[in-house]
C-alpha cells in the first residue's frame, strides 16, 4: 500500500515536473504569430495538412510556406478565423471534412501490442504490453493515427452522436451559404 502510494506520488511529481518543463520549453521557443495561428487550429494532430501536427503547420503558415485551407478537421470556421487573423482571402477547405469521431478499440480482439499507444499524439489510449487497450473517449481527438499501426485491425472510428447539449440550430435553409464578407465589411 505504502509502496503504491509512494509510486503514484512519485509519478505525479514526475509528470508535474514534466508538464512544467514542457510549458516552459514551448513558451521559450514560441513566436507570437505562430502561437496565434496555433491557437486557431483544432489540435487534432492528424497530419492531414501534410505537416507533422498542428504546430508545424502553424509554423509553415507563419513562414508563408503553406496556405490557410489545408486543415480539414478545422473546416470552414478555421479558414475564416485564419483569414481574419492574417488578412488573407478565405478559400474552400482542401480535403475531406468528416463528422467528428472518436476511436473505439474492440477489446476482444486487441492483442495488447502497444503500437496504437505509440501512435496516439495525445496519449488518449490506456493499456500496457499484452493487456487490452482502451481509448479515453473524452481525450481522443479523432485523428485516426492509431488505425494504421494496429496489426489486428481492431480500432474503429465512430462518429460522435449529436446530443442535446451539443446540437446546433442549422443555417437557415433557402438562402445561399456563401460567406459574402465584402457586403459585411463595407
Amino acid at each position: 500500500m505504502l509502496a503504491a502510494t509512494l509510486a503514484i506520488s512519485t509519478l505525479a511529481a514526475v509528470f508535474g515536473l514534466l508538464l512544467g518543463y514542457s510549458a516552459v520549453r514551448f513558451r521559450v521557443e514560441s513566436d507570437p504569430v505562430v502561437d496565434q495561428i496555433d491557437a486557431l487550429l483544432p489540435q487534432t494532430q492528424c497530419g492531414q495538412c501534410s505537416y507533422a501536427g498542428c504546430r508545424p503547420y502553424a509554423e509553415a503558415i507563419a513562414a508563408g510556406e503553406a496556405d490557410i485551407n489545408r486543415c480539414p478537421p478545422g473546416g470552414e470556421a478555421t479558414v475564416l478565423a485564419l483569414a481574419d487573423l492574417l488578412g488573407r482571402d478565405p478559400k474552400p477547405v482542401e480535403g475531406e471534412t468528416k463528422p467528428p469521431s472518436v476511436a473505439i478499440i474492440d477489446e476482444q480482439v486487441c492483442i495488447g501490442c502497444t503500437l496504437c499507444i505509440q501512435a496516439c499524439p495525445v496519449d488518449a489510449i490506456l493499456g500496457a504490453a499484452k493487456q487490452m487497450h482502451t481509448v479515453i473517449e473524452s481525450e481522443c481527438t479523432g485523428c485516426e493515427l492509431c488505425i494504421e499501426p494496429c496489426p489486428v485491425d481492431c480500432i474503429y472510428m465512430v462518429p460522435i452522436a449529436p446530443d442535446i447539449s451539443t446540437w446546433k440550430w442549422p443555417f437557415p435553409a433557402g438562402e445561399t451559404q456563401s460567406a459574402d464578407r465584402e457586403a459585411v465589411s463595407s
Partner: protein
Amino acid sequence: MTEQAHKLHRFHGGLHLPRHKEESTRDPVLPMRIPARLIVPLRQHIGESAEACVAPGDRVNKGQLIGRCDTYVGAAVHAPTSGRVVEIADHPVPHPSGLSAPCVVIEPDGRESWGESRLPPIEDYLDADPVSLRNRIREAGIVGLGGAAFPSAVKITPRPGQTLDCLVINGAECEPYITCDDSLMRTHARGVIEGIRILMQALKPRCCLIGIEDHMSGAIAAMRDALGGDEAHGIRIVPIPSLYPAGGERQLIQVLTGREVPSQGLPADIGIVCQNVGTAYAIYRAVAHGEPLISRIITVTGKGVQHPRNLEVLIGTPIADLVAAAEGYTDEVSRLIMGGPMMGFALQSDAIPVVKGTNCILAASHEDVAPPGPVMPCIRCGQCAEVCPAQLLPQQLYWFARAKDFDKAQDYSLFDCIECGCCAYVCPSNIPLVQYYRFAKNEIWAQERERRKADIARERHEFRQARLEQEEREKAERLARKKAALAAKQDDTADDPKKAAIQAALERAKARKAAQEAEQMSAEKADKEPSG
C-alpha cells in the same frame, strides 16, 4: 401611497398581436386523468442532467425522488405518481433538435399513494429561516415555469456582495394563445400569493411588484381578492399594458421599475429577482404542503384541437394524452408547437412528454402558422430595428450571422437578443431572422467548446512531446553511461592494485626467466672458452 397609481415605464419597440386567448379560457382547468405511461426526462432544466436513483422494476411513491442532481445549477426530478419504473432509457424529449435523452418511464398504478415521500411541510413559512426555504425549493426540484426552466433556488440565492432588493412577479403572459398563468391565477390566486410571500421571506426585498397584462381582468380580480386589495404585505399588483413581449424578463422589469438590465447582464446585477406566477405557486405547494414539482397547468389550444382548454397535467404525460383530453385533433391540424407561436418550437411527434417548463401545446392549423412567403433580400427598411424590444439592430445582426462573422455579431450584442421574433414578424422580406440568430449563437457556443477541447489536446500533445524527448534523452544518457562504463573498464586495468600485482608478478617472473636464460648462456660460453 396605496391609492397612488404605480408609475409605469415603456420598453422599446414591441408588437400588438392578435391574442387568441379566449378559445382556451372558456372552461375551467381540467385535472387530467393519470395516463397509462409517464415518460419523465432526467433533464428538464437549464444545467446538469439529474442522475437516475431508481432502477427498472422498482416501485415508486408519488413524489419520490427519481433523479438526483448534486450540481449547483440543476434540479431534482420526482415521480409524478405512484407506480412501477419500467425502463430508464433514451426517449425523444421536447427540444427543437427532436433528439432523445435519458428518461425514467413509469407505469402508474392509479393509487396516487405518497407513502413516505412527502417532504415535511413547513407550516410557519412566514417566520421560517431563508436558508431552509431555499433548501426546500431546491429539494422540490423547482425551476422557472415561465419556459426557461432555470433552477429557482439558484435564482433566489444572492451572490457574495449582492443585495436583491426588488422581487418582480411575472404574470404578464404576453405571448398569443397561452393562458396557463391566467388560469392559474384565476383558480389558485391564494396559493400564488402565499408563494410570493414565501419568496419575500426568503429574499427580504424592499418591494414586490406583480405585473399582469391589463386584458386579464379575471386574473387581476382574483389576485386582488386573494391579496385583499391592490397592495398588502408589501406586495403590489400592477396591471400593465398588453404589448408583446411585456412578459420578457428584461421588458417586464423595465415596465415595472424603469430599471434596465445591463447588456450581457442579469436582473440580479441591478438587485432584481424575477419569478413567474406558476413558479410562485409551485413554491407554495413545496413549502406548505411538502409536494415536489410533479404537475402543472398547460394550455392545449389552436384550431388543430377540438376543445382548446387548460389542463392540470402530471409532468411526463405524453402530448397525445393532452390532445385526447382536448377531445382530439381537428382536420385542420398541421403542426404541433411547444410554447407559443412567437417563441415556441415545432415538435416532431405527439409521443413526446411534457416537462416542467412546458406552458402550452399549440396544435396549429395551416392558417395559424401560415408559412411566410418567399425569402427576399433585405431592403434595409429598418422596421426590424423599430420593433426590437432589446434595442438591437436586427438587420446588422442578420448580415453578420449570415456571413458567419460571429465576432461582429457579438459586437452588436447578439447575446442580448431574446429571440422574441418581433423582427421576423414585421420583416417585409420574410427573412427568418431569429433562425439566423439562433444559428449564430449556437455556432459561437460550439466554437467555444471546440476551443476548450483543442486547448486540452494541445496540452496533452505538448506533454507527450516533452515526455518523448525526455525518454529520448534518458535513453541517450543511458547509452552514454554504458559506453563510458565500458571505456572505463579498459582503463581500469592499469590501476587495479590486484591486477597490477599480478601483472607485476608476471613481469618479475618474466624478468627472472630472462635473467636465468642470460646466465645460462654466459655459463655455456664460459664452458666453451676454456676449451678454446
